[in-house]
């Protein structure tokens, strides 16, 4: 259903990363997404970054729509459709949650939904210190939160995948959750396979309808908006397009 919501709070979460809280809650599960309408600009898919109590999204500025969205002020209006898609399976006992950059957004709702500090560890990564988000939130919800940056400007130097790989070697996990750029997801999947830990990864594709109709978001025929955004490592291993190509607005295949 389409609803009109106003922004009640605007938090700078990182460099070029803004969290927007809305004046109305949403019945959603951790990992689900919404279509966010910025009137006069565009409508784009966003993971929910808060689900209990208020609803929020966390936006990284990459182009016109995300810039316009990030520039909205308290009191400004957006349209929201959703929530759409599936959610994290949080039943496995020991979970490692891995977020790259703004990918921490749906990861954070998972960590909070586990609601047991000892069951979930968190690996947060980004290119540099400015893009590390939700570290404080994560420490409130988990006993073991570690941070890495590609350039070493904060936390351990290296990719979040190396960090996660180290954690998997160090501790026993029953499940890894991951969200980040597709290249990160690709290497994370590899690391999980090597460590024989099952995983769930949240993926991205062009989204238009959000409701499973238009087919613009498919990866190998699976719709990110219905069967995803979260896919299991097994599902992803069977995909021919993952990490290799995606569809553009016209449905044409383009290399990633």
């Amino acid at each position: 259903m389409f609803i009109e919501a106003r922004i009640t709070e605007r938090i700078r979460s990182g460099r070029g990363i803004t969290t927007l809280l809305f004046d109305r809650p949403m019945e959603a599960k951790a990992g689900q997404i919404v279509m966010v309408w910025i009137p006069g600009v565009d409508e784009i898919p966003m993971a929910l970054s808060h689900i209990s109590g208020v609803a929020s999204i966390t936006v990284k500025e990459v182009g016109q729509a995300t810039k316009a969205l990030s520039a909205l002020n308290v009191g400004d209006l957006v349209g929201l459709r959703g929530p759409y898609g599936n959610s994290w399976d949080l039943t496995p006992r020991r979970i490692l949650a891995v977020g790259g950059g703004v990918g921490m957004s749906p990861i954070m709702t998972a960590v909070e939904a586990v609601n047991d500090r000892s069951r979930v560890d968190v690996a947060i990564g980004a290119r540099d210190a400015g893009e590390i988000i939700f570290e404080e939130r994560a420490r409130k919800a988990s006993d073991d939160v570690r941070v890495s940056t590609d350039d070493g400007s904060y936390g351990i130097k290296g990719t979040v995948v190396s960090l996660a790989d180290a954690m998997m070697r160090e501790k026993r996990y029953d499940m890894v959750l991951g969200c980040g750029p597709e290249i990160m997801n690709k290497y994370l999947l590899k690391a999980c396979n090597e460590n024989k830990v099952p995983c769930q990864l949240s993926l991205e594709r062009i989204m238009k309808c959000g409701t499973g109709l238009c087919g613009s978001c498919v990866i190998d025929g699976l719709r990110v908006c219905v069967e995803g955004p979260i896919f299991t490592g097994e599902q992803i291993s069977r995909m021919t397009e993952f990490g290799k190509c995606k569809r553009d607005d016209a449905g044409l295949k383009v290399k990633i």
Partner: protein
Amino acid sequence: MTALEVDLAGIKLRNPTLLASGVMGETGDSLLRVAVAGAGGLVTKSIGLEPRKGYPNPTLVELPDGYINAMGLPGPGIEAFAEEMEIATKSGVPVIGSLFAAIPEDFASLAIKMESYGAAAIELNLSCPHAKGYGMEVGIDPDAVHAIVSSVKDAVRVPVMAKLTPNTHRLLDVARAVEAAGGDAIVAINTVKAMAISVEARRPILHNTTGGLSGPAIKPIGLRCVYELHEAVKLPIVGVGGIESSRDVLEYMMAGATAVQVGSAVGRRGLKVFREICDGLAEHMAANGLNRLSEIVGAAHVH
């Protein structure tokens, strides 16, 4: 012949539920999935000569009883679609190629390509209510429709179906033009021209301002069109619009439809809708001692 099998203009369908055009029909893999889910046949997204991005978002509004969409006919274009058809035709169920164009010549050259890709039939989109220069802009004029259908019929050997718009008082004249031009079936209906406005934003929600209404909201309109078409032409009719259950299918068949298409319900009910409909149809047939579904086609015409 199994109980649910139907013959649509010479095409054998294992059951009367086709996937409607524009829904999960842009890629071969997604078409395959719909076949696995139980559809009796697949209609592709309407394909044009060139790749098209479609309109910018928002392209869809969700309502309690349907959707309004203005996708703007995005698609990879007929050349690139070869690859998708290669995959889709592996499904084992008939794949019907939907096409859009502005002039008869373009429809014909698209149809020739589609046929060469293995399409079991051609569906002409003469009815999209929101793409400038295409769809219903040509589909409300019986003469234009006659010219398009004739030229496509001359170009291909597979059956040619014309998909019509309810946004006109000339529906029956257009259908008669399809029949006169040698068309093999009528598909009705495409979406009803509509719009949604955001009070808080004080503007239309869809980027394109107007779009097409689909889903349960339009079922009574689609039923009426199929009923009237059944009395106006002898061609087989494919019923579309708001179909979500076996009961809806029975209503459409009793109104005069030989087969049906399911679009919005894929979003509202999920892919399981095809199997649920077929189970319901089989149950109805058993309960009413029907041997073939064709027995009930047009049964509601009781003058």
